[in-house]
């Protein structure tokens, strides 16, 4: 018996069994299958491996036609410098499109800031992207059904249907959504849905020379990403919001939100 058939039969059996148990409640096997499909995309970020080269950001922008010079991006990399006295200094110039090439930290209005090596306790990079949450806030607030989640977990935007009201951009607790300067609709990371659905890798994961970014199927027990998520200490961003993010981080500090 194939794995697929086995899953199907099990789902049918469970559905059948529950009907007899709660004779009044009708259970559609289709619904059971939909609630437990065999594919759920998830993403793993290893912050130890990230070197802040920003090649992922560049690849993402080119792959997804986001203008390079526009100050919006679907993915970005943040730099955290934690001083011995506990102060946290952070920056992400242009979302790290051109990488981190200087010790100076870009503090926007207050200018550039240098932290002496001897004062640094920890310093590292954190790549960010859409978390493709299990309960996405952005989808709930859309008044026209233009943003939605697919059965395999990707949160997408229907460009023909989006009216550009901006509720989703305000609603996202992670700030991953923005207004597309050319399409004039809300835009965000799609997990490179066009690549992963056709057997490929995301542009950012493929571009990363150090394996800091990986995409995988969380429902497949033999998938390297699923194995790490199940078997190692991983964290998610802003767990307290109850959005159930599906981007998992190795080596997450409490200073990172």
């Amino acid at each position: 018996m194939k794995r697929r058939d086995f899953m199907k039969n099990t789902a049918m059996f469970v559905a059948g069994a529950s009907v007899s148990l709660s004779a009044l409640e009708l259970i559609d096997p289709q619904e059971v299958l939909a609630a437990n499909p065999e594919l759920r995309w998830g993403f793993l970020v290893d912050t130890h491996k990230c070197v802040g080269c920003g090649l992922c950001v560049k690849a993402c922008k080119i792959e997804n036609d986001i203008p390079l010079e526009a100050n919006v991006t679907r993915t970005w990399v943040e730099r955290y410098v934690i001083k011995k006295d506990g102060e946290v200094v952070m920056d992400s110039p242009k979302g790290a499109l051109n990488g981190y090439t200087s010790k100076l930290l870009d503090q926007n209005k207050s200018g550039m800031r240098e932290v002496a090596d001897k004062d640094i306790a920890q310093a590292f990079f954190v790549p960010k992207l859409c978390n493709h949450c299990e309960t996405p806030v952005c989808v709930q607030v859309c008044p026209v059904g233009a943003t939605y989640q697919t059965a395999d977990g990707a949160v997408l935007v229907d460009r023909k249907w989006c009216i550009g009201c901006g509720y989703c951009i305000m609603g996202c607790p992670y700030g991953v959504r923005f207004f597309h300067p050319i399409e004039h609709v809300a835009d965000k990371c799609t997990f490179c849905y066009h690549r992963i659905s056709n057997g490929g890798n995301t542009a950012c994961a493929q571009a990363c020379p150090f394996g800091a970014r990986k995409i995988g199927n969380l429902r497949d027990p033999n998938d390297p990403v699923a194995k790490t998520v199940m078997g190692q200490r991983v964290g998610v961003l802003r767990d307290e919001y109850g959005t159930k993010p599906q981007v998992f981080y190795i080596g997450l500090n409490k200073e990172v939100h």
Partner: protein
Amino acid sequence: MKKHVWRPLYVVLGLIGCILVFRMFYIPDDFGTHDRGYTFGYHRLSNEQEWKEYPAKYKGTEYCKDCHSEKVESVAGSQHAMISCENCHGAAFGHPEEPAKLTIDRSRDLCIRCHSALYMPTSGRNDIPGIDPAQHNVDSECSECHNPHNPSLEDM
């Protein structure tokens, strides 16, 4: 009751009728509640297919093998083995038909993305040999002295 009391009601009913007819034609058949239920899955189903058909730009290093095997082998055996060609040459979408040549980025900016020495004690950045771009042979492009496809200092 008098007629003028009913009239506004007919207008309202007519308007609702118009909206319903408009809706029938405007909203596509595949729009509705799908796999993720009403809260998360209310959408136009064919949009999923539209996203799947979005053209991919990056081809991956495997693709270059057929025509630039020498380069691919050289890079694969070097300290730069983990960097995919398209990171330095741009996405290969359409190449070699259109564009016939990919860009060759000789800028120092490309190399210092990784090689500018930063003090990042709890990240992989600290393990990469670093230089100070403001000090290290400032007037020349890096590739004038270093081979980007095999940067070993011994082979210089």
